[in-house]
């Protein structure tokens, strides 16, 4: 009997030491795994958000480039035609005739453009001195030789040296438009000016799927919002130039980088919640496409994991807690999915869908 007591104490000690050791090791490994899992989830979310922003930016850029190309193709400058200089005797008469012919041709070209490019609602031509010579519109009166003076307007001054893109403006309070102007000719530069309806950009933004609570938006060169997943916010045309993520993105310049560093930030979202914000630039236009997801939403898998709840979907809790019998089957299914996902997520192209997360799959 007397031998039994110390042996019993020793046994208890062993048990305690063993428990502490095993428990400690398990705890430490869990914490380490939790940390890496947290990092991995964050990176995965950022990759997907950024990919969506970049893809949308590319599509918007392509949309505008196509329109610009079609505008540039419309016509040549009246005073800039090389053929004009080759005529000797009646050069002036020829030039005049050429001018008239080109003006006619231009009108036909403009009409053709309106038919072919639904986004263009109005197109006009400014001569060398910045006076409007022709305007063709879907909604307003056409004008031939209105002589309206644009010589001091930025649209004329800036377009003489390259493509001019105005700040985005709203028509009827809810439809975003932009003025795009391109130079015509090389020696005596004239300018073609088009008003472009950006409804297509609104549609592109509305199509981006950013999970529940997430949203995408576009700001113009001044930092004003003109497209948002929630169409109601468009008409407010909010000035976001002082919002930290927009400010920092603008200060970095809109030069496109392939590097994701610094293109992601945790910030206050437009609705006041903390968000994971990433952006992509549309360099030629000075526009920025933002994709934001609530931070809570983005870190949900890890939060659930750390709480160790039976419904946790990550592998770390497998070794520790056996779930309540009622949800066992569900739990195993999730566990299996999670393991598969984690294996598959290494160079993941769509890591969110494969990580053990909430409804973040991207809809295409």
């Amino acid at each position, binding site marked *: 009997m007397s031998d039994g007591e110390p042996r019993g104490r020793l046994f208890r000690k062993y048990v305690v030491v063993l428990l502490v050791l095993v428990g400690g090791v398990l705890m430490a490994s869990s914490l380490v795994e939790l940390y890496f899992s947290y990092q991995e989830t964050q990176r995965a979310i950022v990759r997907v958000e950024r990919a969506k922003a970049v893809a949308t930016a590319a599509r918007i850029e392509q949309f505008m480039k196509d329109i610009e190309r079609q505008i540039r193709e419309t016509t040549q400058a009246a005073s800039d035609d090389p053929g004009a200089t080759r005529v000797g005797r009646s050069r002036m008469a020829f030039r005049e005739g050429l001018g008239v012919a080109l003006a006619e041709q231009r009108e036909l070209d403009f009409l053709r453009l309106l*038919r072919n490019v639904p986004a263009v609602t109005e197109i006009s031509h400014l001569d060398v001195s910045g006076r409007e010579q022709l305007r063709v519109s879907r909604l307003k009166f056409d004008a031939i030789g209105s002589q309206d003076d644009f010589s001091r307007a930025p649209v004329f001054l800036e377009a003489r040296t390259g493509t001019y893109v105005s700040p985005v403006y709203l028509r*009827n309070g809810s439809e975003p438009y932009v003025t795009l102007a391109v130079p015509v000719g090389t020696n005596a530069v004239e300018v073609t000016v088009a008003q472009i309806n950006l409804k297509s950009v609104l549609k592109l933004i509305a199509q981006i799927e950013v999970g529940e609570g997430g949203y995408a938006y576009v700001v113009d060169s001044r930092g004003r919002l003109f497209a948002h997943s929630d169409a109601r916010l468009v008409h407010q045309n909010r000035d976001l130039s002082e919002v930290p993520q927009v400010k920092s993105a603008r200060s970095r310049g809109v030069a496109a980088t392939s590097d994701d560093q610094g293109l992601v930030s945790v910030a206050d979202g437009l609705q006041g919640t903390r968000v994971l914000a990433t952006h992509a630039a549309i360099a030629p236009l000075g526009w920025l496409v933002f994709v934001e997801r609530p931070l809570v939403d983005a870190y949900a898998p890890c939060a659930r994991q750390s709480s160790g709840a039976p419904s946790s979907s990550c592998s770390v809790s497998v070794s520790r807690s056996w779930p309540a019998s009622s949800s066992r089957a569900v739990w195993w299914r999730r566990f299996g999915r999670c393991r598969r996902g984690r294996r598959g997520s290494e160079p993941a192209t769509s890591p969110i869908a494969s990580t053990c997360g909430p409804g973040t799959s991207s809809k295409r």
Partner: protein
Amino acid sequence: MTSRRLAEAASVLAALLALVALEAGAQPARRVHSIGVLNEAWAASHPTVEGLKAGLRELGLEEGRNLKFDIRFTEGKLDAMPAAAMALAKAGVDLIVTSQYAATQAAKDATTRIPIVFTLLSDPEAAGIVANPARPEGNVTGVTSLQAELVGKRLEILKILVPSVRRAWVIHDASDPTATPMVAQALSAGPQLKLDLVPRGVLTPEDLALALRSVRPGDALLAPETSNLDIPTAILQTSLTARVPAVFTTALWVGHGGLVSYGPDYYAHGFQAASLVAKILRGARPSDVPVEGTDKIDLAVNLKTADLLGITVPRKILLRADAFRR
């Protein structure tokens, strides 16, 4: 022994079947949305409704599968509108799609609960349908037809087509508040086009007949959008019999012999409205869906009528036209 095994097998099978049934029961039942349509049309197959159906089909909502339509058309009778609207509201539809002012106002009066998506409404603000198109309050949103805005352009096209025109009659339904901004726009466009505009609001068929009798050779007619009193048909007939040019709001009339039209393409208009309808059926509130302007504006010319009226259609119009009727 064998019978016990049989019984065991049967019970296992029964249990399995029960599980399968439970699983099937757990699947959410496919919801069939019911859409009420209310308009002044003369048939259920109005191009706007056809466009709406096509647009919804593209968005995964198909008639007969997860969608059913309850179409009420009043054949141009505006006084039948309130009763039709009430009937739709009582029928328990999920959403009402209306066309033009009378139907929209009737639907708005009939329900404050069921979402309403209007189409072919010229100026919802002026008509008092929504106070703020960018952020509609209440249960009404939709697609505007920009008719008032396009009046100037319509008159300009008329003038290009028939430069000799000096006077144009703006015959409109005096009970339609959306006609007011249209008339105002027409009057303001007059001086620039050197056109003498004569607005004439009509309330009865007699008024209409009287107004049309005043039209003289060399005049022109500007048709309104409304179907009330069948004004566009009367204008079309006068145009063809009195040989005066008339300009219409949509290509539909050019198909029936009208000279020229400039305005929304009805089919495309319905197609556009489908995206608003789908958003609301999928859970958005009408107040979350801003009012949109029509996307597609068409110019249609009837070359046969042009011949009849002795008009040579200029190249400018030919190049611009989206549709011809030969």
